[in-house]
């Protein structure tokens, strides 16, 4: 019987072995992690067959691990993405320093994610949650000195999140006396209303930090930027989904049915929508490709949160569908940016351009990525977005529809900039010798890219497991059949035909346009530009890919500038300064300390009636 303990042991042991191997036989290092993740993938695949849960106890806490259809959905996502990311990193990370450290933390965070999804009690969930936090923290600060403060910010936010979860855990424990998920779900209603509300808010805050929910998102852009590309793929693709995983559980297993549930839903839906809206604006102004993608990621997670919060069967389906799709396409995009970085050494969009000829496969992946993000058929994003809009309209959330639709449309701006700045436009002198990324990086990217097409054409492949997961969350099976998209054409196969035909048109058009367009290309130098009568100085780069959205920035910049990020920094500094004053109580004078002692003694004597209830 191969079950969860074997899975966890395998991953964690592989992490340690990779660390040891790096210091003894470096050749084995990559092989160990890839073999381990392959076996782990198999184990995850066959887990649902194992019906029995694993039970043991640590001290007074009973530990319980088991598989549900909901956790299986996330487990598979983690396994698949990790597999590709690890293959990719075997090429990407070659010749880098401290690979033992890298792979150990990589494997630990994968193992921790498996631990989170398969935990059936809050103690082990929290245990793995913290392991996930510190291993991802270690990878955030892995690259360089600048990453340190970024890592610290990430850690502080994670700690705030983790401690909110912990506070919720202890409230539940003091109220119910049990931390088994099954017990909690069954008896949550028996707690007092204040405790219930506190638990729900704390848990959503805690999980919201990891899923970069505004205003708790400020760590994400920098942390995503600083972590090495293969890990960023996991970071954004899988790790942020742990927050979604948790929010799903909280909403449908705890909050649902309580008196405050509608309010929670409404607030959360708006938070999600505003997250999507604002992060889209921020994404537009980024010059760094990874930060752009990070903001895009925050925005996508906003859609997902809105979908979950609406709470109709269809919206949950949409949210879970987008969860999986986002995991795939965001990893793809981060991997392709990583490939560019691997060859050019930068992720700054102003510094590279015209890479389409040098790196066609990377371009192809990136293109598929942005098409999926934009939700254009025939790729996977389409069905998810469709269902989201439909569910919003069905549940009469018209304002939300407007906000989300606006955000979604505005997303085209940054997506276009992303693909244009890096891959289209003129070639730069500096990138003349750039080659396509190595095979081990291309293949994972392409497989993921193709999978978005597959899921776009056959969404049923995903909707089946999702409806299983929804069965666990509540009685929401086959919710997707209520969608207009799936109804009007009877069954999913017909839908596929529709989607395929729409998609086919798009593809053909695209091929025609690009092929024809590039024939007509004339080669120009970087300086071949209009300058409105002014003579540009030599060292001024005036390509229009630079300062791409300057007009928008002028219009919106002042509105967006007072960001929450600055507010946090300010608060942090204020707190630290006030701590600074506090420590002046340690004056350094022995006599003053003696006076503290006598003063304290006197206070106890004088106020003994107040403190102890007995007058002296």
């Amino acid at each position, binding site marked *: 019987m191969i079950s969860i303990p074997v899975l966890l042991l395998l991953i964690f042991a592989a992490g340690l072995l990779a660390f040891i191997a790096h210091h003894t036989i470096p050749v084995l290092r990559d092989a160990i992690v890839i073999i381990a993740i392959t076996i782990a993938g198999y184990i995850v695949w066959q887990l649902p067959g194992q019906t029995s849960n694993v039970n043991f106890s640590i001290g007074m806490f009973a530990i319980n691990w088991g598989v549900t259809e909901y956790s299986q959905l996330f487990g598979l996502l983690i396994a698949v993405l990790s597999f590709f990311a690890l293959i990719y990193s075997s090429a990407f990370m070659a010749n880098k320093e401290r690979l033992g450290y890298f792979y150990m933390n990589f494997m630990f965070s994968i193992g921790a994610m498996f631990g989170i999804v398969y935990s059936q009690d809050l103690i082990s969930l929290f245990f793995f949650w913290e392991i996930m936090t510190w291993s991802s923290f270690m990878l955030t600060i892995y690259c360089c000195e600048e990453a340190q403060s970024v890592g610290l910010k990430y850690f502080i936010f994670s700690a705030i999140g983790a401690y909110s979860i912990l506070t919720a855990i202890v409230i539940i424990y003091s109220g119910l006396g049990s931390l088994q998920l099954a017990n909690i779900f069954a008896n949550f209603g028996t707690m007092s209303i204040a405790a219930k509300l506190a638990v729900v808010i704390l848990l959503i805050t805690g999980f919201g930090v990891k899923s970069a929910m505004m205003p708790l998102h400020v760590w994400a852009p920098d942390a995503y930027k600083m972590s090495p590309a293969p890990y960023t793929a996991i970071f954004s693709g899988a790790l942020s989904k742990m927050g979604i995983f948790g929010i799903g559980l909280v909403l449908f297993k705890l909050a649902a049915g309580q008196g405050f549930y509608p309010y929670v839903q409404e607030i959360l839906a708006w938070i999600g929508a505003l997250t999507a809206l604002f992060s889209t604006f921020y994404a537009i102004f980024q010059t760094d490709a990874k930060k752009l993608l990070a903001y895009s990621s925050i925005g996508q997670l906003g859609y997902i949160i809105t979908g979950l919060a609406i709470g109709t069967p269809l919206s949950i389906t949409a949210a879970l569908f987008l969860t999986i799709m986002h995991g795939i396409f965001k990893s793809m995009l981060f991997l392709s940016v990583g490939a560019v970085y691997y060859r050019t050494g930068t992720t700054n969009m102003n510094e590279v351009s015209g890479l389409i000829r040098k790196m066609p496969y990377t371009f192809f992946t990136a293109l598929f990525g942005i098409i999926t993000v934009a939700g254009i058929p025939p790729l996977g994003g389409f069905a998810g977005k469709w269902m989201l809009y439909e569910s919003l309209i069905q549940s009469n959330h018209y304002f939300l529809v407007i906000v989300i639709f606006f955000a979604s449309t505005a997303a085209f701006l940054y997506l276009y900039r992303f693909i244009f700045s890096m891959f289209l436009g003129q070639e730069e002198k500096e990138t003349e010798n750039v080659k396509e990324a190595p095979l081990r990086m291309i293949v994972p990217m392409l497989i993921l890219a193709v999978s978005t097409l597959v899921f776009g054409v056959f969404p049923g492949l995903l909707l089946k497991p999702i409806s299983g997961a929804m069965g666990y969350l509540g009685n929401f099976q086959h919710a997707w059949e209520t969608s207009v998209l799936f109804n009007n054409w009877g069954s999913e196969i017909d839908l596929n035909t529709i989607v395929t035909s729409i998609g086919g048109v798009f593809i053909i058009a695209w091929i025609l346009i690009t092929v024809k367009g590039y024939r007509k290309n004339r080669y120009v130098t970087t300086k071949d530009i209009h300058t409105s009568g002014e003579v540009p100085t030599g060292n001024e780069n005036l390509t229009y890919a630079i300062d791409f959205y300057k007009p928008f920035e002028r219009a919106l910049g002042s509105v967006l500038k007072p960001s929450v990020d600055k507010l946090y920094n300010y608060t942090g500094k204020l707190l630290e300064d006030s701590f600074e004053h506090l*420590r002046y109580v*340690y*004056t*350094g*004078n*022995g*006599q003053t300390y*003696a*006076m503290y002692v*006598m003063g304290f003694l006197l206070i106890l004597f004088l106020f003994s009636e107040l403190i102890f209830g007995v007058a002296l």
Partner: protein
Amino acid sequence: MIYYITAILLILIGMYAVLTKKNIIKIVIGLSIVDSGVNLLLISIGYIKNGTAPIFSVKGLTPDKMVDPVPQALVLTAIVIGLGVTAVALSLVIRLYDHHKTLNIDKIRKLKW
């Protein structure tokens, strides 16, 4: 009663010295005075006026005439300990003077915050 009052006065005088005097030697002296006060207080607990040593083999001596021997034993130990502490304190004072060239406790506060 007079013993108790004296002892408490001694403790207070010692505390006063420790808390207000700036010279560290005076502070050490203050500590010693506190010590003496506590010892005096301790020994006066067991004291009985006109009492005598608790020797049970002496005929006609009843327990209410005996001085409690336990506080005496305790005080002996406490005096020895007090001596030890004072010795350590004074040796530290010498060390402090060597390094700082001053005995003012306000000037000896390099370690702070």
